[in-house]
């Protein structure tokens, strides 16, 4: 329902607020699924910081979406098709919560059994994230680093160029 409201909304301010609501709803869903760590991330990043940054972006640009000139039938078909393929893919997955699904038989039992013995950390999410899968987390941190540097370079560079243009035109 929120998604339909987002699609129908023309004011970008409303879209940002609705996206924030959507993030909170997703965080609630994740809590229901017992993924508290992910829910926390979704609530703080999706509903908190990204909303603030989107609002800051809206402050810099126009806040109403242009009415599109072409009918958007092709995008509709693409998204419906992708959705249908994804739903079709879930049909062959084992049903939710089955104990003998493939993913529960690989390394997960070892992590759960040995995390106290090997790392002294009772929260398996933390020990998997920072220890068993340390390389992945290092990569994620590097991604955040790269993204932050990139955005700052873009914004700074544009500002400096704008300033020098102004300096040229004023005399």
């Amino acid at each position, binding site marked *: 329902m929120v998604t339909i409201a987002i699609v129908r909304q023309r004011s970008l301010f409303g879209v940002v607020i609705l996206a924030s609501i959507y993030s909170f709803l997703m965080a609630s869903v994740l809590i229901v699924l017992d993924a508290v*760590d992910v829910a926390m991330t979704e609530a703080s990043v999706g509903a908190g910081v990204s909303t603030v940054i989107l609002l800051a972006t809206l402050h810099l640009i126009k806040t109403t979406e242009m009415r599109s000139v072409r009918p958007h039938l092709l995008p509709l078909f693409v998204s419906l098709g992708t959705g249908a393929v994804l739903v079709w893919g879930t049909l062959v997955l084992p049903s939710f919560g089955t104990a003998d699904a493939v993913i529960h038989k690989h390394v997960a039992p070892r992590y759960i059994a040995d995390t106290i013995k090997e790392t002294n*950390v*009772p*929260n398996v*999410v933390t020990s998997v994230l920072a*220890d068993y899968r340390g390389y992945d987390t290092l990569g994620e941190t590097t991604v955040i680093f790269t993204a*932050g540097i990139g955005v700052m370079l873009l914004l700074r560079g544009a500002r400096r160029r704008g300033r020098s243009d102004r300096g040229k035109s004023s005399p």
Partner: protein
Amino acid sequence: MSLDLILRVGTKLVLPFILLFALYVQFHGDFGPGGGFQAGVITAGMVILLAITFGLEAAQRIAPQALVERMIPLGVLIFAGTGVAGLLMGKNYLDYSVFSHDPAHGHELGIFLVEAGVLITVAGTMTALFYAFVERDR
């Protein structure tokens, strides 16, 4: 000015608790939900709330821009340095068991260091992004 009195006082009251919650999420991440990423975002959220309510100058007094921008590479360096330390002490990259005689304690310490690195990078990046966006329309 007088209209946002409640907002200002409320923000002042709630700021230390946000920071306390961030630290709780960071250091209690071993036992409950949370960790460096979430704590970093909550810390950045505190600075952003301060900037929204009291203006950019107030926020940059407690979190100067130069410090925030240096935090971004510093966190990655702490994370990667933890890995290199394992390498120098004769084990694999990111093998934490070298930090202590008891491998489990070494792993605990390694996770702590790595989470600290993630916290520093995430908090720095989020705050620096917010600063960059806000400074654009000056």
